[in-house]
């Protein structure tokens, strides 16, 4: 049931020592080696690293993306999921994990299967918002639980901020940007770039992301005559007066417009030379967003930027009904889009420098409400990219028995890994120090490890 592991140097040495006896998985050891090599290379050259947050809005049913296929766990899965359970012909097998467990992904996700079997993708088994390590007894006694469990906006806010109780939340992507933006020197492009509009994840205390659409950046007609154009002058003068004398809402609105205008021209010029590789990109919204991310990454040197956090969204996961069809279509789109994206990253030569990861509002009930599922808690997430120690399932895969030790009711699983541990593992790879991790993830010290080991 347990596949928890934290790949450390010591693990590697033990593993290497045991290899002769065949007691250790070769792949993981190689992954660790590759990671060391990558680190050595990057220390020598100006490095670049990007994180791409793929937010699955509505609450993805992760336990119908990753399915255990060993007999015992599969029987439990089948019993708990009722009419939503996948039969084996609706599943694509994954290579066994290093510790010998067997899993499969939904048959709609061949792209995820490939990335996993190529060692470029890892799953996290049961991640969720947690104040501290939490047991079923804690849940029943209602102690130290995140507020407003099972509510969309509250749970996605908590997952994006890791500030469970704070009234005024900022995002952990934003805090990362606050602390690491100095690595980007004088770059005019903010560390955060959102292709999917406003989001809490990227909002920091002192940094805000740049927002662009999947289609790119457009000029402002009003100022297109150039700075010396009388209209531009009048427009800028009015905006300037608002910035100094306006009331709060007017001032903040003017600030946003001014910054949009200032950056748009820079971006347009830079993106004219961008590339998203030679592969074919699907037409779905999530693929278009990821293609835009690829284009921005391809011109990173124009901005002299070293660290970037991107945000894209795939909506529609609140599958209270018609789940098999709707969820299957979404996962299929996502799987294709992620395959295209990571293919392009390899082609652009940044395969090891770019890591994508999923977040979602919450997991969904294992039980069916007829033809769909309701809001739950712990969930499966996944990370992909060349620096991921892939082909493995991290964290503790939960006991899916209804009313079992991990079930808070109707198959709402109590998370065994905190989103903060998940985020911290990514943030450490991104360049955050131990001290910075404690700032970015306020509850991190309450958990047994800050590094889940899935990043080389």
């Amino acid at each position, binding site marked *: 049931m347990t596949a928890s592991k934290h790949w450390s140097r010591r693990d590697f040495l033990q593993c290497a020592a045991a290899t002769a006896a065949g007691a250790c998985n070769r792949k993981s050891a190689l992954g660790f080696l590759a990671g060391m090599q990558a680190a050595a290379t990057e220390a020598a050259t100006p490095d670049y690293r990007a994180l791409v947050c793929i937010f699955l809005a509505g609450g993805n049913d992760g336990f119908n993306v990753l399915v255990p296929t060993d007999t015992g766990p599969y029987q439990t899965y089948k019993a708990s999921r009722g009419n939503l359970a996948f039969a084996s012909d609706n599943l694509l097998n994954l290579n066994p994990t290093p510790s010998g467990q067997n899993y499969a992904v939904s048959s709609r996700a061949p792209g995820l299967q490939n990335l996993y079997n190529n060692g470029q993708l890892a799953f996290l088994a049961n991640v969720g918002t947690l104040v501290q390590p939490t047991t079923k007894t804690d849940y029943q006694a209602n102690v130290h639980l995140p*507020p407003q469990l099972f509510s969309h906006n509250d749970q996605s806010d908590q997952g994006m901020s890791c500030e469970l109780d704070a009234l005024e939340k900022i995002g952990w992507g934003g805090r990362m940007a606050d602390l690491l933006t100095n690595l980007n020197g004088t770059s005019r492009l903010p560390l955060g770039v959102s292709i999917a509009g406003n989001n809490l994840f990227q909002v920091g205390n002192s940094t805000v992301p740049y927002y662009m*659409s999947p289609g790119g950046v457009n000029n402002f007609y009003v100022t297109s005559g150039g700075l010396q154009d009388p209209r531009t002058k*009048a427009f800028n003068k009015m905006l300037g007066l608002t910035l100094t004398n306006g009331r*709060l809402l007017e001032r903040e609105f003017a600030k946003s417009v001014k910054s949009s205008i200032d950056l748009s021209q820079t971006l347009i010029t830079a993106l004219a030379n961008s590339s998203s590789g030679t592969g074919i990109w699907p037409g779905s919204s999530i693929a278009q967003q990821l293609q835009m991310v690829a284009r921005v990454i391809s011109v990173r040197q124009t901005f002299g930027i070293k660290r970037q956090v991107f945000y894209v969204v795939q909506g*529609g996961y609140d599958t209270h009904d018609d789940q098999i069809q709707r969820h299957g279509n979404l996962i299929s789109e996502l799987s294709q889009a992620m395959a295209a994206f990571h293919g392009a990253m390899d082609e652009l030569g940044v395969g090891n420098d770019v890591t994508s990861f999923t977040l979602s509002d919450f997991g969904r009930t294992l039980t069916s*409400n007829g033809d*769909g599922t309701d809001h739950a808690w712990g969930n499966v997430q996944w990370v992909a990219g060349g620096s991921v120690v892939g082909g493995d399932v991290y964290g503790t895969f939960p006991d899916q028995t209804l009313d079992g030790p991990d079930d808070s009711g109707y198959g709402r699983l109590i998370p065994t890994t905190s989103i903060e541990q998940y985020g911290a593992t990514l943030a450490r790879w991104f360049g955050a120090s131990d001290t910075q991790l404690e700032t970015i993830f306020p509850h991190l010290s309450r958990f047994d490890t800050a590094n889940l080991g899935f990043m080389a």
Partner: protein
Amino acid sequence: MKSLTCHQVAAKTLRLGTLLGILLPGIALADLPADCYDPMATPVYPSTAEIPSVTPQPTAVRFLNMATFGAMPRDVNHLSKMTLPEWINEQYRMDASCHLAALNQTQNNNQRENRMEIWFRHAVTAPDQLRQRVAFALSEIFVVSDVGSGIPTNAMAVYYDILVRNAFGNFRDILERVTLSPAMGRYLSMLHNQKANRKLGIRADENYAREVMQLFTIGLVQLSPSGVPLLQGGNTIPTYSQTDVENSAKTLTGWSFGNSWSFFDGDDWRIGMKPFEGYHDRTLKTILDNIVIPEKGLAAADLKILLDTLFNHPNVGPFIGRRLIQRLVTSNPSPDYIRRVARKFDDNGKGVRGDMKAVIKAVLLDPEALEGTRANVNFGKLREPLLVLTHLWRAFDGHSADGTIRYYYPDSSIGQAPLSAPSVFNFFRPDFAPSGTIKNRGFFAPEFQLVNDANNTRFYNELFGLINWRYKGNPYTNPFDILININNLKTRARSPTDLVAYLNLILTGNKLPADVKTVLINYVRSIAYISYPEKGVNRALEALYLVMSSPHYLIQR
């Protein structure tokens, strides 16, 4: 037999109230919703005697920007002859213009483009402006969306009309009609929600049960009458638990289309859902504060207990009051303002709870609404993109050559379309605050959730095109273009001061600061009055765009 009756009733009159009366004999209904006015008929605007001005013009403009889809000269003149309460009462007496009736007169009532056109035509031209404006506000609270939901277009219009017809009714009726509408039923999956079935391994769907509490009535935490969260030992107090959600979900089982013969049958989006007792959970259910729904209750009787319980919860007044204030008046109402509105929700003065007429008056006539920044320095809100366009077309009589307003794809051109929010959380949340000073000072600015670099560019450019390329007299337009009439502006353009003064009045109610006006006047003066294709056109268009794109206009105060 029953089903046939329903069908006939619906086909004839579409009167949901009558239908509910048949289906739910146990539920006492208040007034029937307003009758539908034929929106294709020539609008008849009430005439007023030639009496001296009662309401000053800037006051009228400010007020109409809150109570309608944007001030326009005709309405300003009309309102100036009466007091604000008189204007509201006049609006209360008007017939409702309904969207489905108008949609049915288009070539295809199931084409989304036609629904958009009908919405804009109502927003821009319907005489029952207050009703339409409140309905739009309600559509951003009781959110149903055609994004990803598969709800047919004509069903969206049926839903919108529930809000139009009940905007001046009782909140309890709105709640019930929304709950039983098949559009909401599909959107939040109460339609075909069935009791637990061990053999199938299924249980009741919690979607509507949760959102009706969290978003439509009581919210997450206990509130004081002024909308401030109550605290116990420093912590907020939840209004409901997960168990309450589960039990409410059971209560809400057993509803299907109003014309269905069996539970999974049916397809009539025009009438309310009807119960199938075989699919209703008849066990004993305990909800909020130990309200017991006894076992063996019928679906309708159980629903009545649940909705009555929610409706009578002390949170509803401040919760819904704050949302209506935010939609119509200001993003950060003072607790006192919320309390005054909540008090009217609790009792309209005649012992009636939930009287929307009393609530709307309380929202629009509150001293804080009328005094603006003089009463509350943080008064104001960002105009929604849709409301900027409707204002443009109202103030300058924008329409296509045949009188329609074919603005088919507002979602892609301005990022917002009626009944097309990305989720039940609307385009923006009541508690959204953009990072920076607004958030740091603990204020909210919901509409800022639509403000970002990509949207700023899109919106500024769309507005630029709608003004600079779409005016009557421009030789380069086609008959479907929505053209504004700038005759008024062209005449005034001879004097830049007059032109700016007029725009300042009709758009902002004289809220442009003096230094901003000076910049504008100087710029307008620098443009030649004699211009192609007619005198004054360039001055008019430049000035109009610069006012409407300025933060002093876009922040409405």
